[in-house]
């Protein structure tokens, strides 16, 4: 911010962004203190769709809590399903058949692509480009159809069970997924030509909204935000779970720390997701999709347990405290965007309002997951 812009007149005003504003992608309110077009202070105000999921975890059984996992981050619900069932399997010592693990990875990665596609469309929409949204939704629609056929839901999935998956996938799901990947591969160059190399987009994003690796560390930011700041950290690699160690994929890392870097990380992740799915489909074994002995009433050993997975927006952690009963004593959900958004106040200081919206879009916010 130029010093002139501030000093010429000291007139500052407050501006409310949201709670109902298209750029906030949900009911998020940002209290802005403005000096002309420049932001002096931006304070996110949360809680408009707070539903107290953590209390719900304490008054229903472990299995009854499963549907809640589809309602945190409704754009990549399967990652949250996966984190929760893996935690309970760890607590109760349940083995999962290999076929089920492969199905979990295939569906979760498909869900990650659909989440990134929606982010892509909505982000470019924030910046004023309407058309890419329609293309992205066209591709996303195919994923929703594929997932609907196996999970029975289009958005709020509740597909994984303790010890496996709700049902087996059919061959036409696998062949349909491969056909979809072929189609999306052929369309990625189009996206890059249409959007990534678009000079307007480049000028809106390059150098805008710098977030250093140190800032990420101080605020606990993870996921594409952290990887766009040059830190090679992905829970799937650093703390492998499920069958990810058997699969060959790269973690895209960009060192520019700006909004363009975060954009590039997510676009490259779509390619990596496709690689993961192809390998998983090539390797998927025959066999059961549910473990044989899963206790009807799960009563884990008393103690506390932690488990993390890589969701589309960063590392999602659950800390569960069991007192040996069939319900959790305490269920803490550590959602990635909560931490990612907490750095917004510091990162947006002195930015132009329009740039700050680009920065907000590049954080990929999903409000129900922040408010929980």
């Amino acid at each position, binding site marked *: 911010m130029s010093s002139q812009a501030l000093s010429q007149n000291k007139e500052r005003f407050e501006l409310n962004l949201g709670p109902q504003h298209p750029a906030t992608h949900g009911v998020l309110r940002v209290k802005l203190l403005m000096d002309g077009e420049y932001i002096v202070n931006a304070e996110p105000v949360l809680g408009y769709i707070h539903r107290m999921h953590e209390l719900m975890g304490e008054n229903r059984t472990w299995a009854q809590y499963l549907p809640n996992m589809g309602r945190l981050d409704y754009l990549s619900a399967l990652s949250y399903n996966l984190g929760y069932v893996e935690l309970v399997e760890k607590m109760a010592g349940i083995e999962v058949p290999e076929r089920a693990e492969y199905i979990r990875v295939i569906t979760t990665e498909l869900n990650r692509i659909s989440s990134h596609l929606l982010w892509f469309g909505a982000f470019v929409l924030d910046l004023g480009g309407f058309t890419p949204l329609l293309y992205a939704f066209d591709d996303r629609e195919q994923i929703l159809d594929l997932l609907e056929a196996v999970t029975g839901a289009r958005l709020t999935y509740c597909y994984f069970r303790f010890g496996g998956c709700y049902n087996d996938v059919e061959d036409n799901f696998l062949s349909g997924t491969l056909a979809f990947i072929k189609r999306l591969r052929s369309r990625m160059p189009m996206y890059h030509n249409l959007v990534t190399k678009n000079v307007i987009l480049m000028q809106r994003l390059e150098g805008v909204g710098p977030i250093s690796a140190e800032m*990420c560390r101080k*605020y606990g930011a993870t996921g594409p935000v952290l990887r766009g700041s040059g830190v090679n950290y992905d829970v799937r690699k650093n703390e492998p779970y499920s069958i990810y160690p058997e699969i060959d994929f790269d973690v895209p890392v960009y060192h520019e720390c700006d909004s363009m870097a975060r954009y590039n990380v997510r676009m490259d992740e779509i390619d990596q997701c496709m690689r993961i799915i192809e390998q998983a489909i090539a390797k998927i074994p025959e066999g059961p999709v549910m473990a044989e002995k899963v206790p009807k009433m799960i009563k884990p050993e008393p103690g506390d347990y*932690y488990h993390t997975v890589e969701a589309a927006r960063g590392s999602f952690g659950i800390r569960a405290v069991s007192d040996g009963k069939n319900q959790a004593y305490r269920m803490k959900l550590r959602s990635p965007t909560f*931490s990612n958004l907490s750095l917004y106040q510091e990162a947006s200081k002195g930015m132009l309002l329009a740039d700050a919206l680009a920065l907000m879009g590049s954080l990929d916010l999903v409000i129900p997951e922040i408010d929980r």
Partner: protein
Amino acid sequence: MNKLNVIDELKALAAEGMPAAPEVAPVAPPAPEGEEGAAPKKAAPPAPRKNGLLEVVYAVKGVHVDVQVAVDQVVRAAQIIDGAGMTLEAITGVDWITDKELEVVYDYSFTGGECFRVVVRTRIPRDQPNIPTISKVFPGANWHERETFDFFGINFEGHPQLEYLLLPEDCDFHPLLKDFKGC
């Protein structure tokens, strides 16, 4: 980051607070000692856990190191962990109503390389839930502490803005306390 340094420093810190509690082996090098001795650490009927550091089995618990410190040591614990280049994942509470205590739990992890997770916990009396803030060490703690204040009514002393974050600004209850009966 040197894991062993962090473990040693935290161990020394936790040992400071207690006059004599030899059960948790303050001298043992970071090795199997007392690994599954950690099992009953949460059960209510046995005596509450003493301050000290436990190296727990990662595959079972999901963390590598579990350390309980005194209330006035949480800031120093955060500084040790910050100095090692680790990051704050979350802060939360647990209401141990039968012990008349609240537990505050800090989750730390390392994002710069090999996975390393540390959980720091402390217990405070339920009727005087005061604890120093660590938001000066980790600015990200600001929101986590506000959330813990919402849910448990824990007063983080020195916090720059201890207001309701997720709950409505005019509410007068703390939903995760075990004696909360709905509203």
